[in-house]
């Protein structure tokens, strides 16, 4: 397993509903990122299709693995990289049951997927209208260490990041489609999740305007001490490379030992109180 490597934050805007064009864009960004030495390239939430699709989601969702993941596998093989991207997933057991899913693909092919657990359905969001929520936090063993995936609104719920950290993930990858009015929340929470878990956190947000919603970009790589290692531009497409060195975790984990000090009995209480809210 590699201790240090470069990660690329591929902050793109999407062609609405045009998977072919978006896969082409994924390839273009992977090629550019690879030239700069990145071994992991991360794209935003629902980057295969764009975020605001409403009823068109039913026609665009695909099974995983499926046609689009196979196309991205080819790119990963060609450039020898790991790729994370988001797409609407069609359940393999049903015909119109969808998930908002993050997919992890490696140089040797498909590795795994994470289905978003917290679906925002308030303000401008209507995700529960279209998606079924996921039930499993996911971290995957790779040559780049264990990688944990979360999606956007999940970051407001520290449990998901905690779970994947406890699974052994040292890099939490959060793909996102966050509109500009929520920027300060994410800028704070990305740092918080990194610090409280003493892990790296890569946040990759969408840009562009979809149905009047302006996605703010501002993708970032954060170190286990909360230091922002790399940031992408606000509001514009960008490709930013940051370097991860897992060795940085050790001193900070000794300095603020949040994992050592976790109190398991509180989680039982949390469960009990949450059910009775």
């Amino acid at each position, binding site marked *: 397993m590699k201790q240090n490597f470069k990660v690329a934050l591929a902050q793109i805007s999407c062609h609405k509903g045009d998977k072919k064009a978006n896969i082409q864009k994924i390839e273009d960004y992977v090629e550019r990122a690879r030239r700069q030495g990145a071994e992991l390239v991360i794209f935003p939430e629902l980057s295969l299709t764009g975020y605001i699709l409403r*009823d068109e989601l039913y*026609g665009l969702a695909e099974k995983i693995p499926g046609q689009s993941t196979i196309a991205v596998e080819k790119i990963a093989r060609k450039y020898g990289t790991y790729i994370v991207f988001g797409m609407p997933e069609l359940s393999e057991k049903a015909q119109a049951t969808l998930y908002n899913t993050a997919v992890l693909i490696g140089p040797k092919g498909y590795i795994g997927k994470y289905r978003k657990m917290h679906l925002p359905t*308030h*303000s*401008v969001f209507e995700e529960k209208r279209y998606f079924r929520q996921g039930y499993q936090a996911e971290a995957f063993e790779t040559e780049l260490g264990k990688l944990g995936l979360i999606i956007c609104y999940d970051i407001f719920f520290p449990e998901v990041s905690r779970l994947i950290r406890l699974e052994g993930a040292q890099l939490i990858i959060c793909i996102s489609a966050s*509109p500009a*009015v929520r920027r300060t929340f994410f800028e704070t929470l990305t740092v918080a999740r990194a610090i409280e878990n003493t892990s790296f956190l890569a946040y990759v947000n969408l840009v562009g*305007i979809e*149905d*009047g919603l302006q996605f703010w970009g501002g993708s970032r790589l954060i170190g286990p001490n909360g230091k922002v290692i790399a940031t992408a531009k606000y509001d514009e497409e960008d490709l930013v490379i940051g370097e991860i060195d897992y060795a940085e975790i050790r001193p900070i984990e000794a300095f603020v030992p949040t994992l050592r000090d976790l109190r398991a009995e509180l989680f039982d209480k949390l469960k009990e109180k949450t059910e009775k809210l």
Partner: protein
Amino acid sequence: MPNPISIKGRTLKLTQNVLNLNWEEVKTKITRFIRDYVEKSKAKGIVLGLSGGVDSSTAAALSAMAIGGNKVLGLMLPERETYNPKDVKHAELVAEKFGIKTEKIDITPALEALEKTIPVFDPEDKLCKGNLKARIRMLYLYYYANKLNLIVCGSSDKSETMIGYFTKWGDVAADISPLMDLYKTQVRKLAKHIGVPDVIVEKPPSPMLWPGQTAEEEIGIKYETLDLILYGLEHFMKTEEIADQLGLQKDLVEKVKRRWQIMEHKRRMPLTTKIQYRTVGFDFRLPFT
């Protein structure tokens, strides 16, 4: 009423049967809706444009059934270029049959006044000129509504609304549109059921924007076929499947689908960009009445 998703076997069968509804139930639903809206808005009645076509005749008849013909005012708004005495006669026929009050106003002077004062007016551009006519009719309807405390009842149907075959802020402008969830061929069936004269039900539809204009010729497809394509799209069918079942070229179905998709801007409040906490058209979610 048949199940709205009448799936037989594995796929939906696109035949004229899928468009059959219990017309008595539809009539009850629509008249109850109109009556309820007029009561809740505390208006004195309804004003609507009466062209002599099937949609406006049906909307007028249902309005009269809902609140009484004496509370419904039908404005006949002819214009010189597209004037057809038959249409006026048909409008009068409906008004008489359902006891609706009418007024006839020639919109030609208003149109000519605008033509003279628009520096870029192009008499050859029949679409722009036609849209002007539809928007002038809207002005008359809203003046009456304003002045007499009436609700404007639109008569747009689902087929035209889905493919955007109407004038933005023109004929579609209304406070309520009771026929908007019925395809054109369904409006014809409902019209027949409630006693709209056959001569109106059976004549070829026209938005009357320019002389000789007929909807089906302009759209390039018969409503019987268009409605089944749209019904398939409504039910999330794939374009290949619709084309296959109806024996059509896939390109034609794709064209209808694209038209449906790109016309969303004509069906919703103008788009803004989100800047603040709650935003019109995004997350201000208040009931109508």
